[in-house]
């Protein structure tokens, strides 16, 4: 910690002051999106890659975001390694970036990743020179394999995408933390500020979220809350929490109490 600021997050060859990664979708409107992202302090903003509308152009999200933020394209909506790889390659061409948040979904109901396709796509993209940041389950074995392949960060879910259920298995995240040397970013499931703080207290390097801010009653307020939660959680992690005990331990001196 320097001058009250938390340490930087470094992914591949880039360093960031903020440890929050934020989505650009499902806000009430573009202005609230922009104001919320600014309030969150996030520097990395995710976008999807979609077919252009051949029916005529509305203002695009990228026009609002490019230049001000580090744009991280995702492969959301892809169900096969092949589609995810092509989407990443299209993103590289469209955005002139070799960074990708890799998502290969296995099932529309759970939006859980398809581990087999995810590993294949990660391998292909690392081979093709991408900075690969895979969204994955909180499975220590899968996370280890993704790291071994050469992914630049690992992004296990706290709970299913958009569920707001928070971190349902903190013990797994602790195991994953212990075995992961690349940045570990909790992606998906964050519902409120304490979820983000917990992720950071567990030792994760960052938090990726979207709906928790975009769908809050006051997105800008929640964006602020997330920024503070992540900074607070990071500082708590670095500062070291006290051990949990089953008995009370008074903090005021026991001697010199009046009437004794």
């Amino acid at each position, binding site marked *: 910690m320097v001058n009250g600021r938390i340490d930087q997050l470094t992914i591949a060859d880039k360093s960031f002051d903020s440890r929050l990664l934020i*989505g*650009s*979708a*499902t*806000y009430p409107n573009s202005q609230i*999106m922009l104001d919320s992202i600014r309030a969150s302090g996030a520097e990395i903003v*995710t*976008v*999807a*890659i*979609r*077919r*252009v509308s*051949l029916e*005529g152009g509305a203002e*695009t*999200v*990228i*026009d609002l975001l*490019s230049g001000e933020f580090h*744009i991280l*394209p*995702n492969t*959301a909506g892809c169900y096969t390694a*092949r589609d995810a790889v*092509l*989407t990443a*390659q*299209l*993103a*590289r*061409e*469209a*955005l002139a970036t070799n960074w990708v948040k890799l998502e290969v979904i296995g099932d529309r109901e759970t939006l859980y990743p398809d581990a087999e396709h995810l590993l294949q796509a990660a391998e292909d993209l690392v081979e093709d020179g991408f900075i690969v940041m895979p969204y994955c389950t909180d499975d220590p074995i899968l996370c280890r394999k993704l790291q071994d392949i050469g992914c630049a960060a690992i992004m296990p879910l706290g709970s299913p*995408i*958009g569920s707001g259920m928070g971190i349902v298995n903190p013990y797994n995240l602790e195991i994953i933390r212990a075995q992961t040397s690349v940045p570990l970013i909790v992606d998906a499931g964050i519902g409120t500020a304490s979820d983000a703080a917990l992720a950071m207290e567990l030792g994760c390097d960052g938090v990726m979220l*979207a*709906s928790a801010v975009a769908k809050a009653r006051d997105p800008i307020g929640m964006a602020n809350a997330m920024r503070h939660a992540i900074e607070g959680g990071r500082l708590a992690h670095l500062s070291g929490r006290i051990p949990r005990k089953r008995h009370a331990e008074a903090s005021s001196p026991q001697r010199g109490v009046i009437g004794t």
Partner: protein
Amino acid sequence: MSWTISVNGKDKSTTIKTIAGLLDAEGVDPAAQFLAVAINGDVVPRSEWGAVKICPGDVIEIVTPAPGG
């Protein structure tokens, strides 16, 4: 003589031979930033949009960034 290609999932009858020409015909400014095109699963770099020939049956994807999480 025209032929059929697929553009963003829709079959189209066309006589256009280049990507630049196709984008123009579809109302997409080929000079616009943040566009990418793939033919039959391979990305075609912007520098080749005027040169690569579109063939009958080609499956073409034209994409751009959109809001995402």
